[in-house]
């Protein structure tokens, strides 16, 4: 670290001497020097970081073994010149028989490190400055998280207070009831008669019974409203709209497709070509998660989704694919993840994703709703027959770039006398198209 700063500084000093004209006042020079000192250090590390991220991070992490060793504090381990030579071309050193080089090469199962002839010594200094850099503990972060956790508490407190209030209310009601009961029994024992004003409600009731029209209309009202509710209840039998089961791994679409904007079809890759969208096999997850071993994104403390919670979920994934983080290798010890199926049409219906996604170009969101905002996935549409039919009545066939059907599309438009064909007009309402 100190070496780096001195070399770059001496460079900037000599540059300064070249560019500064002699009559410059001495103290202003010192001011300049001090500011330069700070900025030179910052630039080093920032530059080193971007070089590191672009060139080295695919194989090295700072604190953890990846494909190559952890690089934190590596400059203390080796001689500077040796490091320059190694980073520029490690293979050449191994060939030349450098003992230290061969030892590391053997230790890492003879995985070759890329050669970086394009990096200058200065670049390498910057990178090493970055790998040595220890960030000062950020004092504000603790207070921020403290504030967040305190915002999490009120809702819990509210719940507790509400619950307490309800209990108190219930206790009061029972007490009142008991009190009146004992009071009346005492009164009865004492021979006091309490006359209750029973006559009034009865007179209204009697008037109501006598009025036949009122009875008739209220019976009709009652029947209609119960028919309404019964109909509503029966129509939702077998409809799983809003179904949101608990999955074996808390996999969040909000984090993957919302925050990190991963395309739906990266994982649901068979939607393009087949009936099913499919759930990705775990090797697809490991394309990213061999590298992403812990979660550092946003938290939702109110619901208990902390970083540890999410990181723990990633460990579940590792357990299922049999990935050993220590050795960075697969153990071969796998177990299937039992995802709970959410969308499920009855087996007598034929629904094809490729027809809708590739041919018609319908967006996933149109049927599956705002998936990229769902922390836990739920069924957004009703998936009833009426839902399919409505869309087939309303939307037009994408005729453009669909040469296979040009002729039939033209003939059908002529037949119906329309410019744009709906799917219904193409035969999308025929029972046989959706039912086997």
């Amino acid at each position, binding site marked *: 670290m100190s070496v780096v700063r001195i070399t770059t500084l001496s460079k900037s000093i000599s540059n300064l001497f070249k560019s500064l004209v002699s009559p410059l006042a001495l103290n202003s020079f010192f001011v300049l020097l001090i500011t330069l000192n700070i900025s030179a250090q910052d630039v080093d590390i920032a530059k080193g970081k971007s070089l590191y*991220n*672009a*060139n*080295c*991070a*695919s*194989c090295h992490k700072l604190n953890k073994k*990846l*494909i190559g060793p952890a690089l934190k504090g590596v400059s203390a381990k080796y001689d500077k010149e040796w490091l320059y030579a190694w980073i520029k071309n490690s293979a050449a050193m191994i060939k030349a028989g450098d003992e230290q080089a061969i030892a590391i090469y053997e230790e890492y199962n003879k995985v*070759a490190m890329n050669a970086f002839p*394009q990096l200058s010594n200065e670049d390498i200094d910057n990178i090493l400055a970055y790998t040595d850099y220890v960030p000062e503990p950020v004092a504000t972060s603790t207070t921020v998280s403290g504030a967040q956790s305190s915002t999490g508490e009120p809702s819990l407190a509210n719940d507790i207070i509400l619950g307490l209030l309800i209990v108190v209310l219930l206790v009061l009601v029972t007490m009142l*009831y008991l009190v009146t009961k004992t009071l009346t029994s005492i009164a009865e024992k004492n021979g006091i008669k309490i006359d209750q004003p029973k006559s009034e409600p009865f007179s209204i009731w009697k008037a109501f019974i006598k009025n036949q029209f009122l009875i008739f209309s209220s019976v009709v009202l009652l029947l209609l409203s119960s028919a309404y509710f019964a109909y509503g209840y029966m129509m*939702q*039998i*077998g*409809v*799983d709209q*809003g*179904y*949101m*089961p*608990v999955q074996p791994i808390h996999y969040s679409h909000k984090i993957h497709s919302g*925050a*990190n*904007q*991963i*395309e739906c*079809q*990266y994982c649901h*890759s068979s939607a393009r070509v087949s009936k*099913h969208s*499919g*759930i990705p*096999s775990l*090797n*697809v997850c*490991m*394309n*990213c998660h*061999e*590298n*992403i071993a812990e979660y*550092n*994104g946003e938290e939702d403390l109110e619901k208990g989704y902390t970083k540890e919670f999410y990181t723990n979920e990633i460990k579940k994934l590792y357990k299922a694919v049999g990935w050993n983080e220590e050795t960075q290798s697969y153990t071969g010890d796998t177990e*299937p993840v*039992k995802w709970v199926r959410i969308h499920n049409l*009855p*087996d*007598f219906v034929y629904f094809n994703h490729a027809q809708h996604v590739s041919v018609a170009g319908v967006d996933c969101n149109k049927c599956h709703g705002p998936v990229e905002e769902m922390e836990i996935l*739920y069924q957004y549409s009703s998936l009833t027959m009426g839902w399919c039919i409505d869309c087939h009545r309303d939307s037009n066939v994408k005729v453009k770039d669909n040469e296979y059907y040009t002729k039939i599309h033209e003939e059908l438009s002529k037949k119906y006398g329309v410019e744009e064909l709906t799917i219904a007009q193409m035969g999308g309402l025929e029972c046989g198209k959706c039912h086997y």
Partner: protein
Amino acid sequence: MKKITFFSVMILMSFLTLSCFDQSKPNYQFFPNMYESVGYSTYQESDAFANGIEAQLPVDGTISRGWVPYDYPDTNEGYELAKKELLSPLEVNDENLSKGKELYNIYCAVCHGSKGDGQGILMKREKFLGIPSYADRDITEGSTYHVLMYGRNLMGSHASQVNAEERWQISQYVISLREKLIK
């Protein structure tokens, strides 16, 4: 007295109906006799096979129709060989390029960026580091195909997501991106 029982019954009823609405359970079905056929559905659990799932790997030694074997081994030598001599069977034309672009934006742009400069969204958010710009790597269509087939270092294989023809289309598009970057 009556009123109290009436009200408590009402309250109990409303509690009951509310508690029946459990989002983590599927709804009732009415005579679902034909909802589930005897055939297996995709990825279903099944005790027909030893590992308990319906989806199985093809039997050893069989290949599916239209599948072409890929002869280059997954080693450094195989990679160098593919870089040198593996050529694309597809001609360079607009159709292949636009298909390649579409697929590239789905499968590669999260990491490599839509321009191929290594500045994909995961790199920008510092979730996945160390993604090179195509301009910095000495790649050919053949080596790109090889990398898609087997993966390389931290990049995983994408062979399960795109088929052979699509891999060639993507490779073609990657090389066209690289040419633009180098210019």
